[in-house]
Each structure stands twice: as structure tokens, then as C-alpha cells.
């Protein structure tokens, strides 16, 4: 079963982070990704550019409208994701808890819809 792990963190706090901490965080992410690749849980994963680069698009009555910024203003912003394979929610939760940002922000676990069940 696949789960999408959405990584939320405060961009403001990220900006304020000292360089040494940032490097440590980056190294932690590298190690974590390597681990879940080795264990076979990793399917995909990326970090995203900051929300000031986001564009929201809608189509209404056939017309495309685009607006600057993310869909919703929130205290913590979506900053990256992993797509993993796990046997159940408990396993997915354990993996999500190991994402370095889990200590700083929050990880939302969303089961991927399976059209075969």
C-alpha cells in the first residue's frame, strides 16, 4: 500500500535557521532517504521550492485564471514529500516519524487511493 507523506514546516523558521543547522538537516535528509531506499519503502520524494514561487490555477466556465501564491495560507507550508510503500498505517507512521522535519514541523500521512480495492 502506498502513502504520500506531506512535509509541512514554517518557511519563516527555515529562513531563520543557522547555517550549521541547515547543513545538519540536509545531511539528515540524505541519510534518511538512503535508508528508506535500502529498505525498499521509497517510491519517490522531493523538496519543493518555497511558496512564494507557487501559482494557483483554476478553470471556471472554460476560462483559466491564475493567481500568485499557494492555494491556502497556513502557518506551516508544504515543503516536500515522500511517496512510500508500507504494509499499513503503523509502518507508514513509523517512517514518517523518522523524516527530519517531523521534529520541527508536521508530516501529514495520506493513503494513496487504490482503484483495485
Amino acid at each position, binding site marked *: *500500500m502506498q502513502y504520500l507523506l506531506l512535509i509541512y514546516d514554517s518557511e519563516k523558521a527555515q529562513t531563520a535557521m543557522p547555517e550549521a543547522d541547515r547543513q545538519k538537516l540536509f545531511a539528515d535528509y540524505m541519510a534518511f532517504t538512503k535508508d528508506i531506499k535500502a529498505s525498499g519503502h521509497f517510491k519517490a520524494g522531493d523538496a519543493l521550492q518555497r511558496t512564494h514561487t507557487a501559482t494557483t490555477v483554476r478553470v471556471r466556465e472554460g476560462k483559466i485564471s491564475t493567481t500568485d501564491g499557494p492555494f491556502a495560507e497556513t502557518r506551516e507550508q508544504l515543503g516536500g514529500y515522500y511517496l512510500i510503500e508500507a*504494509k*499499513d*498505517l*503503523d509502518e507508514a*507512521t513509523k517512517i514518517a516519524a523518522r523524516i527530519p522535519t517531523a521534529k520541527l514541523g508536521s508530516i501529514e*500521512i495520506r*493513503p494513496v*487511493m487504490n482503484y*483495485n480495492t
Partner: protein
Amino acid sequence: MLSTAAIEAVFRGERARVLATTIRVTNGDFELAEEAVQEAFAAALARWPAEGTPDEPRGWLVSVARNKAIDVIRRRVKLREIVANEVAIEPQEDRASQTELVAVPDDRLRLIYTCCHPALATEAQIALTLRTLGGLTTEEIARAFLTSPVTMAQRLVRAKSKIKEARIPYEVPEAAQLPERTDTVMSVVYLIFNEGYAATAGDTWLRRDLCREAIRLGRLVAELTSAPEAHGLVALMLLHDSRRDARTNDRGDLVLLEDQDRTRWDRGQIDEALALVPIALRGGPGVYGLQAAIAALHASAPRASETDWPQIAALFDELVRRQPTPIVALNRAVAIAMWQGPEAGLSLVEQLAGELADYHLWHAAKADLLRRLGRQRQAATAYRAALARVGSEPERRFLESRLAEVLAAM
């Protein structure tokens, strides 16, 4: 020949176990399992009166429910094969015999842990536990929690759908997580009990039912996990519940512990609880065991004046260490006041002003200590503050009568 009422009694007794096993067969699909169990009961109603009751009613019900569920899964798979031409997924335990199905360790344990999974909201945990393990209908649960049956039904549907779609495992947690997960289960059981016990509002009869149901669930957790704390929880609930007939008078007014007619306490329940307390305290006491020990000291005092307050205060010291909440600290302060006098209690109560300023029982405790110190004017102010925050009608009447007393004494 078995009457319909007798068959229904068998259902009530066996439903949770039959359902728990069927959910295992359906791979955690609660909805499908509930339907299959319902159909098995309907089949029993149709067949038992004529064919006689089977030797193993539970085994019979499990096996019929399992076959019904497997039929549905097969039909779904077939449909999918036709639609997508895909490989079929066989349902679990397809070839298991009736005896094998029943012989496995009690499936209700998996059911409890799944219903109380931390990924579900507390209200959903409570509703699901009462609906699947308890014998309560959706309507009864809705009435007990003062919501509409529609809201309650939606809550249950959402919870069951989350279990299925997010694949919350239908199993007893691994050893490393077991203590924490058992804590959640116990807190759900105790919340159910308190909903029944705290006279907030609603149907009295139903509230008693909630208490009984919580005690039954607690016994089940204690029996299945043998956790000392679960025994403590059962003892605690039994002791509270033993006072149910003495804690209100004929008019529905509250009667304080010290004023209760102790001959109206349920002795059978007290004796059962007193036997459980030592088991609960084995291997270092937890929060339920400590509270049960405190309740046991009250239950063992022949008269209020003979209560062992120093021992109760000592147990509260330990409880505050394990559960450092302002409410526990307030209860400790009241115990110390009973032991060392209102003056000592009052200074402890006043230290909690910041945290409990909005809690009616903090004002009520303070008012009572001031009243006992003869400071009637201040007591009246505190009773008024408590009245401004009280929720339940019996508590309001009690505080009003105390306010009238201190006003008369001024």
C-alpha cells in the same frame, strides 16, 4: 426450542466476538463484517427454532458470517476481474475450519486496539468501541453523547472508512508500542465510564448503561491484557459505581461522600474491587491503581469520620508525581484539608488559582474551606463564582443550598 428472545440474548452475548473474528476474515473491513454478522444472526433466527440450537452457537455464527463475507468478497473480485481482468485476491483464512476460526486467541483484543487506534479522533474511538465491542446501537450512543443519530452514524462511517482506506492494522500492537496503546484503550474505557458517571445531563437509565458497559469493557481489557493498570481501572470504576444509589437523594440532589448512607453502597462490587487493588498495585502503582487505592480507603471506612486521610493524602502525593495536573493537585489539597484542617488545605487550593480559575469545582472547594473556617462572607463570594461556572443541574442545586447556608450564618 429456543425463543426469539433467547436467541437475541445469545446474540448480545456473542456479537462482539463474532464480529471481531469476522473483521479478521474481511481484512479489516468493518462495514462488510457488520453486514455479514447481521445476516448470520438473521439466519440463526430463521433456522435455530426449527433445527435446534447448534452445540457451539458462536462457532456456528462465525462460520455463517465468514461465508457471507467471503461470498461478497468473491463477488467483488469477480466483478473486478470482469471489469479489469485482474488477478483475484483471495480473502483471508478462506480454508480455515470452524474450529480453527474460533480457537485463535480472542479476536476482541485486536478489535479493541483497532477501535482505539491513536490515528482516530477520541470521539471516534469512543463511538466505535461502544458500537462494536459494546452492545449499544448508534441511536443509544448518540443519545448518551447528546448528538443526533445522523451525526453519530456519520462519525462511525468515517472512522470505519479511515480504518479501511488508511489501512489501520487489525492486530495487537507490537511489544514496543503495547504499553502506550493499552493506555489509550484504558483512557477510552474510562472516558465512557465518566460520561455515564458524571451527572452532566441526559437520560439517567442510559448513563447507568454506559457505566455498566465501561466496566464490562474494562474487565475485558484486564482479562485479555492482564495489565495491572487495567485491573486498577476496573477496581476504580467498580468503587465509583458502587456508590451510585447513595450519591443522589430521592429528589435527584447530590449527596456528598461524607454524608452518604454507606449501607446503600454496593458491597458486592466493593468486595470485588478490594480484591483487585493489590493486583493493580503489583509492580509499581499506575494512575488507575492509585486512584483505585484511594477509592478503596473510602469504601473501607465504616463511617466518614473514620476515613484514613493521612494514607489518602500519601497516595495523592504519589498520584501528583505521576499525573501532575491541577485537578489532581486540587483533590490532593482537599484530602490534606480533611487530614490537617481547612487552613492547610486552603493555602494549597489558592496556589492553583491561576490554572483553575474557570473550573467550578475549584471555586466550590475554596468556598467549602472558607465556610469551615467561618469566613462566611468570602465563602459566599466563592460559591457565587462556582455557580457562575457550574454545568449540571444537581451540582447547581447543591451549590445554591450551600450559598443559602452561609448567607444565613452571616
